[in-house]
């Protein structure tokens, strides 16, 4: 009913200062709720984007990450010939053997030390991962101590900028290029020549292999024979599945902590809605008596005050969503507990989250408005009119 809606909205407007404070308080809770979801989803999305569904990653069976995995040089050569792995026009397998290490650098903002993923690889990495492209400078020269850094590393670690020299493994490494990995986790990595890294860090084996499949559905063709072969002792996973798993602990911690905070704040917001609506009922007792005299039922009165309360909630929801949408331009950089390396990720807002935030806000306001609305509905007409009863 249009008139009924106008009645509720105009009453909120008539008490606009109280309404504004209540909406602001609830809006803040929605903002926190949404920020948590956006952050956790942003992390998962960043790592999820790190993989390509057309790629498979090969690790030693039982290894949790590339750091504790190893594949010998001989095995790597044999594995690359497995059917189901894409080949170039020249008949070379589209595969890359890599070594995963860690590097400690100082961050720009906090001046604190942070651990970065160091990936010893080859130029084949760009064929296996077509989304990774050169953004500045040039590729490293094989057989040299030249390195490239991901876009987020260049942004957040001033000493790792283009043309800077990094000292690690008792050698000096020059940053000759910056690559853009389309917002994926590779943006938080440092890449260089695998052979140079292996020599520097006295490694004889690779950590992992990433191969491009002939077709995205060719995983089984690679996975089954390689995992069955006792020589290799390998575990084969689709690349996005592997990287998504790398976000599990941190995403869970963000969600648990954030949702706990949201739950605590929401109690305050619900109480705010209850107080606002209780004041509305107290101010409009005669109005309630009048409506009941005109023939409106107790249920209609209950609905009226609930609609009003829900309108408060919906406004708060929109305010929270508007505030949270600005977070999309913010990037957070922190340690990923699953890898021990720094990972940069943003707040990501999806339509489902917008719906969830609105639902959450309306639910809070409904719970907050229920007691005052019930009290309004239970008023006796004569008592509500507050006039002479004799």
């Amino acid at each position, binding site marked *: 009913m249009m008139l009924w809606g106008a009645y509720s909205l105009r009453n909120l407007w008539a008490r606009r200062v109280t309404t504004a404070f209540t909406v602001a308080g609830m809006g803040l809770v929605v903002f926190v709720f949404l920020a948590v979801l956006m952050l956790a989803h942003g992390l998962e999305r960043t790592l999820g984007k790190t993989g390509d569904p057309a790629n498979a990653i090969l690790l030693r069976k039982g290894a949790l990450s590339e750091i504790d995995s190893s594949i010998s040089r001989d095995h790597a050569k044999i594995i690359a010939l497995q059917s189901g792995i894409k080949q170039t026009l020249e008949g070379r397998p589209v595969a890359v053997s890599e070594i995963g290490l860690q590097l400690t650098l100082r961050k720009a903002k906090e001046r604190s030390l942070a651990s970065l993923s160091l990936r010893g690889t080859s130029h084949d990495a760009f064929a296996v991962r077509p989304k990774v492209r050169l953004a500045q400078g040039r590729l490293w020269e094989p057989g040299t101590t030249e390195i490239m850094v991901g876009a987020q590393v260049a942004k957040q670690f001033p000493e790792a900028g283009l043309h800077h020299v990094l000292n690690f493994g008792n050698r000096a490494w020059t940053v000759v290029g910056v690559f853009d990995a389309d917002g994926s986790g590779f943006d938080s990595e440092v890449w260089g020549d695998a052979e140079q890294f292996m020599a520097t860090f006295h490694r004889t084996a690779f950590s992992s292999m990433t191969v491009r499949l002939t077709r995205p559905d060719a995983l089984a063709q690679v996975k089954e024979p390689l995992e069955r072969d006792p020589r290799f002792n390998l575990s084969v996973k689709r690349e996005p599945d592997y990287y998504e798993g790398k976000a599990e602990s941190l995403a869970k911690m963000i969600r648990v902590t954030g949702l706990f905070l949201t739950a605590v704040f929401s109690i305050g917001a619900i109480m705010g809605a209850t107080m606002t609506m209780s004041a509305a009922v107290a101010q409009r007792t005669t109005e309630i008596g009048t*409506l009941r005299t005109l023939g409106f039922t107790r249920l209609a009165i209950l609905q009226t005050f609930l609609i009003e309360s829900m309108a408060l909630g919906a406004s708060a929801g929109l305010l929270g969503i508007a505030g949270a949408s600005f977070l999309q331009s913010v990037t957070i950089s922190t340690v990923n507990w699953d890898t021990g390396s720094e990972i940069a990720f943003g707040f990501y807002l999806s339509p489902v989250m917008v719906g969830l935030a609105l639902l959450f806000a309306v639910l809070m306001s409904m719970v907050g408005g229920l007691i005052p609305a019930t009290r309004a509905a239970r008023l006796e007409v004569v008592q509500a*009119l507050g006039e002479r009863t004799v």
Partner: protein
Amino acid sequence: MYDPVVTLQRILKVYFRAGTEVSVLRDLSFSIPAGTFLAIMGPSGSGKSTLLNLMAGIDRPTSGVVVVAGTRLHELSEGDMARWRARHIGYVFQSYNLIPVLTAAENVELPLLLTHLSRSERTDHVKTALRLVGLGDRMDHYPRQLSGGQEQRVGLARAIVSDPTMILADEPTGNLDRESAEDILTLFGRLNRELGKTIVMVTHDPRAAERAQLIRHLEKGVLETPP
């Protein structure tokens, strides 16, 4: 047409205040023929408003039978009583009781929200009712933009817009100046004479009561027998 439109039989109404029993209406029986303009007079505390509230179906007697518009009110549930009020009662309050956030037209439209009328039909009814009380040009005004007399005329339009069986008015001129009070009483007279509406008005004011066809006095919960 219900005749009589109101029948009260052996009505007893008792309130409990601070643990004390207060009898407001005692063994009250009377009826009101359809089409009557009745004024009920009496001093404060005599039970006038309670009597009106019983007839309006917004209060229930401690004992006795209330039959209004052919319905035995004490047999109705809360919800049915609300729906019955919407159909049969137009109530005019002393303090007008308009909803401040709604315009005159929206205030008058309220009772029609409980009917099955379409939006355009409701608008037509509202216009007719407001024109009848002389406020056809004040439809979009909010109560705060109206004088007391105009507010009460909106209250009267709201009471008649759904064409109820009976109009009940509780001190309708109590808050008005003489001129506005006269306007309201003239409207009551017209509604009674021209449209045959049954009107029961509770008042302190003898000059207001004189405009009714019939005056009954209530004293300490007992209705005075007419001579």
